[in-house]
């Protein structure tokens, strides 16, 4: 059973200077194996700082993190091992591409793990396939690709390390709707097929509502809500106060409810909403017919 436990985590940027900033305040969090978590929060709420702690890129000022029951700040802890198990895809990951061919760039991670050539090849092909790219681009220069392709190559570079947990910081920022849907579908597929834990940082309430099992809402360095999407979006008025919002369907459903339609306002996706509306309409229809017949 692999899991991440975050215990009383605190982080202060540039302590003792004019730039000092308390970025994370007493964060407590449990992330279970195989979960799909949506992490949302306003810019500067501490999301990015938190996820960089999870694979040891930033060391906490206070508090600790346990990965599979082991303290990652332990002196003998294998940090490189942790980084291969907890894959982190940064925002605009295509900005880190550096090799002359896609193959070389994607195999950078597995190579650093010291694997055998055969295993490196295998993982590279697999990773490129997982992000929905063909073998034909392996010999192309990553700088010749389109924006969406570059992003996939960069994500493949992290997938090639075969992480148990995949953290993605706004993987769809700056992509067109089609590219966005494709990437999110592939992530969902990865989660389904390979059973890896996903942590998706996003600004889009629609996206997290559609894919995530659990939402974590951050504000000013602390966790405000932690629960199922429909539980969190009930607080849509409070979410607005901290610069966020609920999915558009939540607003529609609440409005319908206020107008006297008996629909469940806690649904979060368009599909669920459609079902709810159909159900409510057929109910109204049958009850009306009953009245007529009586």
């Amino acid at each position, binding site marked *: 059973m692999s899991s991440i436990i975050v215990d009383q985590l605190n982080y202060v940027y*540039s302590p*003792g*200077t*004019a730039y000092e900033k308390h970025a994370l305040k007493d964060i407590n969090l449990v992330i279970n194996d195989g979960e799909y978590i949506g992490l949302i929060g306003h810019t500067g709420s501490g999301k990015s700082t938190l996820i*960089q702690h999870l*694979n040891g*890129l930033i060391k906490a000022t206070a508090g600790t993190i346990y990965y599979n029951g082991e303290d990652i700040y332990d002196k003998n802890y294998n940090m*490189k091992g942790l*980084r*291969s198990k907890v*894959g*982190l895809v*940064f925002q605009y*990951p295509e*900005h*880190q*591409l*550096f090799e002359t061919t896609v193959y070389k760039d994607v195999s*950078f*991670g597995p*190579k*650093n*793990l010291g694997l055998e050539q055969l295993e490196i090849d295998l993982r590279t092909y697999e990773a490129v396939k997982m992000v929905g790219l063909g073998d034909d681009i392996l010999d192309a220069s990553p*700088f010749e690709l389109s924006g969406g392709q570059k992003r996939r190559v960069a994500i493949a*570079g*992290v997938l090639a*390390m075969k992480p148990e947990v995949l953290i993605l910081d706004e993987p769809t920022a700056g992509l067109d709707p089609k590219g966005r849907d494709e990437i999110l579908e592939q992530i969902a597929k990865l989660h389904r097929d390979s059973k890896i834990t996903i942590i998706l940082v996003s600004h889009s309430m629609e996206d997290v509502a559609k894919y995530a099992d659990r939402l974590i809402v951050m504000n000013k360095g602390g966790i405000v809500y932690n629960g199922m999407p429909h539980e969190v979006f009930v607080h849509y008025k409070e979410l607005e106060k901290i610069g966020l919002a609920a999915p558009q369907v939540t607003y529609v459903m609440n409005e319908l409810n206020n107008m006297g339609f008996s629909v469940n306002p806690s649904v979060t996706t368009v599909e669920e909403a459609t079902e709810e509306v159909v159900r409510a309409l057929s109910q109204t229809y049958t009850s009306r017919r009953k009245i007529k017949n009586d």
Partner: protein
Amino acid sequence: MIRDITIGQYYPADSILHRLDPRVKLAGTIIYIISLFMFHNYYGYILAVIFLFSMIQISKVPMKFIVKGLKAIIPLLLFAVIFNLFLTPGTLVFQLGFIKITEEGIKTTVFMGIRLVFLILGSSLMTFTTTPNHLTDGLERLMGPLRKIKVPVHEISMMMSIALRFIPILMEETDKIMKAQMARGADFESGGLIKRARSLIPLLVPLFVSAFRRANDLAMAMEARCYRGGEGRTKMKPLKYRTRDMLAYLVLIIYVAAIFLLNSYIA
């Protein structure tokens, strides 16, 4: 790691030194640096130390922050010190094989060390208390007369302000790329010289690419706003001397006078 480099950074604080006209600070820094090379005896350095430390006190920049900036020049400092110590000819003090240390060597080394350290401290105090924009404004005004001999003063200062503005951006970018590559198992810290140099490729390539991209974007944005160089360009906040600037000049004159006194009367 990369955030530890504080040279050239601005430190926001509310002090008289921060509010001074950048021209005064530039002139002061230049005079201070020249003065460091004019002293021939230790008394002069005592004066320079007192002057600098009182300025640091006035500036309200924490001492810790300033000293941190020195860390970056330690290799350079050691280099200069070692060469001076071993390669200056003169009266022999100590010899071990081919290593010779001379009296003159020790003296040059000490002077050199003090000069370098205070040169860095003095100039970083200026950047700590002056925003990049102010600094280049001041430079542009100070270099103004050079325009008569066809020196592109405005262009130079524009390039400087862009360069200064980009330092923190590129540092942040470096930090980000470094972390991203570390997340893919890159190791920047261990291994021999060649291995370490090679490990910089995954960092430097993306950094250059992004620098070019940013430069391109900036040029486009400037052109979109019809930037055509300095001809006929006016300032929203032109520099103006105030009483405090005159007082600061007075302090500088006293400092210069004190140097001359020290140099000519105390041998």
